[in-house]
């Protein structure tokens, strides 16, 4: 018996795979008025590899008689923007001076691991154990589960816990094939089927799907999958709006910086923000995998942090242009931090203590630093109530505390879905408290 893969090969050999499975989505989308999503939006930037926050938002100068922590501290000193401190390194000044009022910096976050995968799992789900959803997946599944591409990912930690579909969108060409399945790839503007034919096909397909859904004796999983498929077709509203917003090749942000180094964040952000603008998405993970600097640390972190700063600046500028900046929250973090000293290869190795940055325009919690590290970049305890350093009544901040607070900030902490994924923190830290 020929299976589906065989059939695809066969059909490809006769030139039939030009029609993508999403043709039906498009037909339905054309038949419906887009009901654009207008709620909150979230971008998570995964600065993968372990960023050096001592050269960024938790600056550490050198200690006399101790190994050098940072080369920049030999000639420079810690800078301030509002209440925030930053290192005179990379493009930090431009970033912090422009956006300090948007920023909540949490320092001294203990990832409790020096392993990349564990660090990613812990930071992006709030738990060290596997299987918990990332924040974007969780909030999308609760607040915007019917959007056609509610949760966008670019390949980082994107555990969905089967709550919602993750849509990987990081290239225009395949995206065009999805959004314009009735258009031959080499003949933009032309169509495989005219409206009359498409209407007939769509009507037949809809009727067929209704019959499939109505079949009795289906296993629950089969029934569920068919319902999800039908829902995905029905939630295609807004694809036309997204398609209309897609940038041309000339308008697409480059995926490399001026020196030719990988710098994909702005392109990822551009597509995500346009999907937000079109009302087809609510959350997006952006990923940048350049921070594991065991050698040549200063140059590589400088490039990485500069490109990260440029991308954050682009996100807010572009969000303003699109009129969605007021709805946007940005969360930036990494697997963990890097050692407060250089190794023999001019690199820095893994260090469990890192930082996280939350950003929102006009946030009452902007221009705030929570969490502390000592001069040697060891985490210090924070009082959950006062948010002040407190060796006696304080606790070490873990990613779970951040995720717990973020769930509360998003208003999903008491949702039954959230309750299925408890973080089991002994205390809550209200990083986002007013005043």
């Amino acid at each position, binding site marked *: 018996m020929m299976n589906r893969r065989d059939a695809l090969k066969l059909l490809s050999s006769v*030139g*039939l795979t030009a029609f993508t*499975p999403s043709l*039906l989505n498009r037909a339905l989308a054309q038949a419906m008025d887009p009901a654009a999503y207008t709620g909150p939006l979230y971008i998570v930037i995964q600065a993968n590899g372990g960023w050096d926050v001592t050269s960024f938002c938790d600056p550490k100068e050198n200690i006399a008689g101790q190994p050098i922590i940072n080369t920049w501290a030999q000639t420079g000193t810690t800078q301030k923007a509002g209440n925030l401190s930053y290192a005179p390194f990379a493009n930090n000044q431009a970033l912090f001076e422009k956006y300090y009022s948007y920023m909540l910096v949490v320092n001294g976050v203990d990832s409790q691991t020096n392993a990349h995968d564990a660090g990613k799992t812990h930071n992006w789900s709030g738990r060290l154990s596997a299987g918990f959803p990332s924040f974007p997946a969780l909030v999308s599944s609760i607040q915007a589960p019917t959007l056609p591409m509610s949760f966008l990912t670019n390949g980082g930690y994107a555990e969905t816990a089967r709550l919602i579909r993750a849509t990987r969108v990081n290239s225009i060409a395949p995206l065009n094939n999805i959004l314009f399945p009735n258009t031959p790839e080499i*003949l933009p503007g032309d169509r495989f089927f005219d409206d009359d034919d498409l209407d*007939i*096909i769509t009507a037949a397909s809809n009727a067929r799907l209704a019959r499939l859904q109505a079949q009795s004796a289906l296993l629950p999983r089969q029934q569920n999958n068919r319902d999800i*498929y039908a829902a995905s077709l029905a939630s295609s509203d807004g694809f036309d709006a997204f398609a209309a917003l897609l940038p041309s090749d000339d308008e697409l942000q480059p995926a490399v910086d001026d020196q030719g180094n990988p710098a994909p964040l702005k392109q990822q952000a551009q597509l995500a923000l346009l999907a937000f603008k079109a009302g087809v998405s609510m959350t997006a993970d952006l990923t940048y995998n350049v921070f594991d600097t065991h050698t040549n640390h200063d140059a590589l972190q400088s490039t990485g942090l500069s490109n990260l700063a440029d991308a954050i600046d682009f996100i807010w500028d572009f969000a303003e242009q699109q009129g969605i900046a007021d709805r946007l929250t940005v969360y930036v973090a990494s697997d963990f931090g890097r050692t407060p000293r250089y190794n023999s290869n001019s690199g820095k190795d893994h260090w469990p203590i890192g930082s996280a940055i939350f950003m929102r325009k006009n946030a009452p919690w902007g221009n705030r630093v929570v969490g502390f590290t000592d001069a040697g970049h060891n985490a210090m305890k924070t009082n959950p109530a006062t948010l002040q350093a407190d060796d006696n009544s304080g606790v070490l901040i873990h990613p779970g505390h951040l995720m717990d607070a973020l769930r509360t900030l998003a208003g999903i902490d008491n949702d039954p879905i959230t309750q299925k994924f408890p973080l089991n923190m002994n205390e809550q830290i209200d990083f986002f408290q007013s005043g």
Partner: protein
Amino acid sequence: MAGEFNSTDSSRLLFAGLSRYLTPETEAVDSYNVTGKQTLVLDATSNGGTQKLSIASDNGISGNAGVLLSDIQVRDGNGVLLASFSPAQLATIPGAGASCGSAQSDGWRLNDNCTLEIPLQLAAAQTVSVSVTASPVNTDSAALAVSLDVTETQPTQTLGALAIRNALINLHQRLLDESVQLPDPELAASYQLFLDLWNARRSASKPAYLANTCNYSFTDPQQQASDPYQVMNAWMGVMTYFLTDYRFIHE
């Protein structure tokens, strides 16, 4: 689709037994390569009643060649003449017409990618022989198809309808892993889709060729994309129905 329909029948992957001339109306059909003035003969078994003769020039989609039809006769199994038509007088034959072409002093010039239809009333089920005298125009050889058709809008028992349904049974099995036979509603639905697409395109006089011809690997795009009876276009729509089906995508 074009690749399949332009392959030899034995080398086809999905559409063996079909042709671009085989429509749901078809009772009998044959195709010819006309290299000089010659008489083409189509032998058919008719169920009788209201029928029509259909002739398609299929030499290309935009050339200036064609076929001159000078005489059409229909005889019964004993050679008795049942009907005779002079294509030069096409306009005077009740119910007859052509999608394009022009009357000449010695016949009807059927331009490339044009079709001609003549109503035919047969008293009873019988074997008939249709002879068409034709010669190529502005070309050394011209492709021509002659068929005897019913005139129903929803035919179910013709040679063409049976062949199309057999092809659909094969597609249901191979693409969706569904074993269907009449009166399975899924087979009825996919056949109805073919009918709807085919009738709609004919009624609207849609272009009688495959669109986006430069998207395919044709050795002769002008000829191979030709779809005088809208058959390949209808099959394209049906294939999209199958390829976007939940069972094909997910199961």
